[in-house]
């Protein structure tokens, strides 16, 4: 009897951890997708992706708390502002170094990291703030398993975002132009595509997706300028795991990292403290044993 109860409880616990893992995984997936979007276009990692997301989340915070706008208006407005911000950053800061070596670009994005972090400190300060959530904090009970509205909301929103991005790239003219520009910039220009603007749009889209993940993180954590830093690490882990140039890989990698972290944190005693180290461990293992990631591009070419 006692063992049966324990088994049932641990089974429910497992389900809860899986849901939690998928929910946080969706978060990692959307930020990883933002990283992949930029990586595909310019083969560099945007180390400022997390700070840009936090910055736009602060904008959402101001719209919500100072202007008292309703959440469902703030959400799309913030995403739109983030897209504009991403385009501006590309046009003003990245454009002059577009053709520079990768290391230069990486350094520029690290510089951007510092700029956005400092700006947030100046404008909003380093005090942690609670970020309002539109979802109730009570759990939903499903067959004896308690699942939080937050987790369900996370899963729903990241699914919608990922599907929208996928539809954009596969079903629209501009999405097609962006894909072609990323893979074949020279040929795309011969077809009349303004590749530079496609790159800027890529930055905008990445910033928009990042803003969504920022607004999803903020109610779970607390809002402060360093909010996204650990999440960025897991997003990197997810992107490397899935293959840096693969959007599908980013999503699968994000979910995998989320679920693995949740399980490791629950079932291996003391491992919760080592989550960050775990992220690095995965990155190193993947880079050593499967450098392209699990969904990385396989070159198909006929000579």
């Amino acid at each position, binding site marked *: 009897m006692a063992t049966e109860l324990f088994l049932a409880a641990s089974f429910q616990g497992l389900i809860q951890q899986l849901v939690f893992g998928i929910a946080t995984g969706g978060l990692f997936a959307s930020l990883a997708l933002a990283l992949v979007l930029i990586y595909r276009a310019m083969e560099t990692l945007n180390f400022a992706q997390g700070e840009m997301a936090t910055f736009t989340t602060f904008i959402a915070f101001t719209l919500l708390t100072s202007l008292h706008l309703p959440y469902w208006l703030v959400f799309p407005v913030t995403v739109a502002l983030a897209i504009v911000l991403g385009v501006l950053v590309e046009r003003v800061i990245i454009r002059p170094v577009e053709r520079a070596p990768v290391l230069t670009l990486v350094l520029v994005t690290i510089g951007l990291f510092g700029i956005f972090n400092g700006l947030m400190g100046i404008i909003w300060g380093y005090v942690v703030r609670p970020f309002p959530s539109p979802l109730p904090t009570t759990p939903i009970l499903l067959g004896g398993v308690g699942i939080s509205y937050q987790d369900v909301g996370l899963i729903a929103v990241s699914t919608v975002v990922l599907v929208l991005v996928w539809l954009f790239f596969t079903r629209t*003219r501009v999405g097609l*132009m962006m894909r*072609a520009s990323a893979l074949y910039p020279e*040929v795309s220009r*011969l*077809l*009349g*595509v303004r590749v530079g603007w496609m790159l800027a749009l890529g930055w905008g889209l990445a910033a928009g997706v990042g803003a969504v993940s920022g607004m999803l993180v903020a109610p779970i954590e607390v809002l402060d300028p360093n909010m996204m830093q650990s999440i960025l690490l897991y997003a990197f882990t997810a992107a490397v795991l899935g293959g840096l140039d693969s959007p599908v890989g980013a999503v699968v990698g994000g979910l995998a990292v989320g679920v693995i972290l949740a399980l490791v944190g629950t079932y291996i005693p003391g491992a919760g403290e080592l989550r960050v180290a775990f992220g690095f461990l995965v990155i190193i293992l993947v880079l050593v044993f499967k450098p392209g990631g699990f969904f990385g591009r396989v070159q198909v070419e*006929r000579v």
Partner: protein
Amino acid sequence: MPLLELENVTASYGAVKALHDISLNVAEGSVVAMLGANGAGKTTTLRAISGTVKVVGSIRFDDRPITGLAPEEVARRGIAHVPEGRGILAQMTVLENLQMGACLRRDRAGIKADLDRIFGYFPWMSGRTGSTAALLSGGEQQMLALARALMMKPRLLLLDEPSLGLAPTVVRSIFDIIARINREEGVTILLVEQNAKLALRAAKHAYVLEVGEIAVSGSGQELVRNESVRKSYLGY
């Protein structure tokens, strides 16, 4: 008034001059060929026109200067360049390649009609729109490159060695289609070709390039009769 006019065009890659003072004309509606050995500057001439190499001199298209314009702006004026090596979007499908040709157009009905017309030129293509372009044969890729250029609705088509690496029968059918495109679509064509026999048969007018300069020019007939051209390029 020629559709395309190059006057004293010079181009270099770093310190190496690839074109010296080239001047040439392409009349509207014609097929013009450029012959010459490897490294004579044929490809560079096309690249100069499409803006993919820096040039000094004057290039005019439709009586407006296009010298120094970025490649995407040249393309937007109606010049389609099928580059050396075909420039296929290898990891995309056949249909996506064709859609990329039409990516600046908004006339859905026109695009649909052009697709159907292109499937008329290349009947095999309509059944393989979902294939990855990388998996096509060399000849099919060349046809796809041509088809994609047509989707741009260009006024001038720049073709860089359409026969390169292809079997003779494939080459013949591609040249037949090039001739039809010129006749039926009214597209002006500037053609770079190592295979002089083919090029001179297809072209109304031809230029022979030697080490970055124009050595001979004339109508296809004249060049076939020209002794040095015959010896160097036709091999008899």
